[in-house]
């Protein structure tokens, strides 16, 4: 099961610099980054090649960071690519809590990353429907 690194950050200049600076020191590669913001503060979510190590490094620096379980699936990079997956999730009553996506190869492959309450159930319904679920290793080596 893949993980993302979630980092608590006040909504002030210099925060992304500080986080990415810590990761740079150990040559950690960022695959995707997204920030959810609530005004005063936000959560920076990072998909990196070595999540455990990244979370550990950030914590050592006194930064509030944690690992979250996520679901990552491969979808086709074409109109309707995400719709198919979303339909499966709707039919199974899975609520997507937080999500982002990125393109791996234009017009071909994209990855949809999301948080859900029950990761195992979600992975099962999607793989039953023929979606390819990315494992830790696969995701980070894209």
């Amino acid at each position, binding site marked *: 099961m893949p993980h993302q690194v*979630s980092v*608590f*950050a*006040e909504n002030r200049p210099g925060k992304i610099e500080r986080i990415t600076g810590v990761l740079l020191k150990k040559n950690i590669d960022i695959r995707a980054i997204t920030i*959810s913001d*609530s005004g*005063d*503060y*936000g*959560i920076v*979510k990072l998909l990196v090649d070595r999540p455990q190590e990244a979370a550990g490094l950030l*914590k050592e620096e*006194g*930064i*509030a*960071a*944690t*690992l*979250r379980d996520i679901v990552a699936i491969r979808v086709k990079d074409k109109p309707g690519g995400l719709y198919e997956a979303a339909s499966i999730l709707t039919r199974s009553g899975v609520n997507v809590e*937080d999500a982002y996506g990125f393109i791996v190869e234009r017009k071909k492959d994209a990855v949809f990353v999301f948080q859900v309450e029950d990761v195992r159930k979600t992975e099962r319904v999607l793989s039953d429907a023929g979606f390819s679920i990315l494992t830790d290793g696969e995701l980070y080596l894209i």
Partner: protein
Amino acid sequence: MYWNSELETIDRRGLERLQFDRLKKALAAAASTPFYKKVFSENGVAPSKISTLEHLKDVPFTTKNDLRVSYPDGMVAVPRRSIVRMHASSGTTGKPTVIFYTMKDVDEWAHQVARGMVATGTTSDDVFQNMMGYGLFTGGLGLHYGAEKMGCMVIPMSTGNTLKQIQFIQDFGSTVIHITPSYALHLVDEIRAHGVNPPDLGVRKAYLGAEPYSEGTRDKIEAQFGLDAYNSYGMSEMNGPGVAFECSEKSGMHLWEDYYIAEIIDPETGEALPDGEEGELVLTHINREAMPIFRYRTRDLTRFIPEPCPCGRTHRRIERIKGRTDDMMIVSGVNVFPSQIETVLMNIPEVGNNYQIVLEREDNLDRMHIKVELYSKMFQGDMRELERLKKRMGEALRAIITINPKIELLEPGSLPPSQGKAKRVFDNRSL
């Protein structure tokens, strides 16, 4: 104009005789309470052997903590069936300080307040709109009963609800208001925002209380509202508002010495200070049946004004309160101790060791911001969880301090370290 000219202009010797009689009675009544029974026996105080007012000094000081320790009724001197009222203020450790009143106590308190109101020229022709909080807080009900006693028509509005306050001033012709200084400044802005010139409303007088404020704030309220503002003083331990009240001279507050024996002490040594010197006010309530309290450390700093007042009242005046000898904050009229906030925060596992309390004034209203560092080990990476945490903190704090602070979550380590005496309270309000 006097409410009770005989008592208000009594000569000092007559006043001292009255104080002595009442003190003796109060000591005898207190000897039946679990708290003072112990205090008297430990300090060799025998109420029946008291022969001068000086003997009061044999009784040690009573503190707010003594009231908490005696919770709920360790200082009550009358049977339960004689009590008709209680008030309470919030407590540092969850236990409030509670004050009880008999029917006579409630009535005497109303007389004290009526005295003060009449001393400022209020009459039974006035319509009195009370914008102070009702409930366990003494501010609202204290002046309510006093104003009724002297025959005003009372509009028991309580605080807030600004539109209705303005409408009722207009519809019922309110001439006298009771209000915190910060709310008065806010109200005046709101009145203007409705296209009304505040002096046109016809409010002639405001009683300001429950918060510290400066002479400059009084001037501002008077000028903007076109009224006379009077300072008043009190605290629930000594009944509530009406302990001391300005007369129409607006030059210090007459402390009703037939109700209280007042001392000014050096807050460090506890020694009495000469008349006119600034120190901590210590009060003994000598005219309350349900709950006599001796030598109560008010923690308020003031001084006696030794010169007689041109109004003819013989009761000495105290100056506007200069400050506190402890760290109590007054926020929107509510007494809050930093330790109350700390106790709540430290019981929440997600909160780190560091926090700050920041007080601001926005649109003339007090705002409390609490900045807390998130404890990194408790961070779950979920935004909604953080929102729930903020809500939980807000509710826990509100339950103890009765006001709603704005919670700001900070990254661990972002506040200055807390070794030693960390400065945690930042009061950015200008008085």
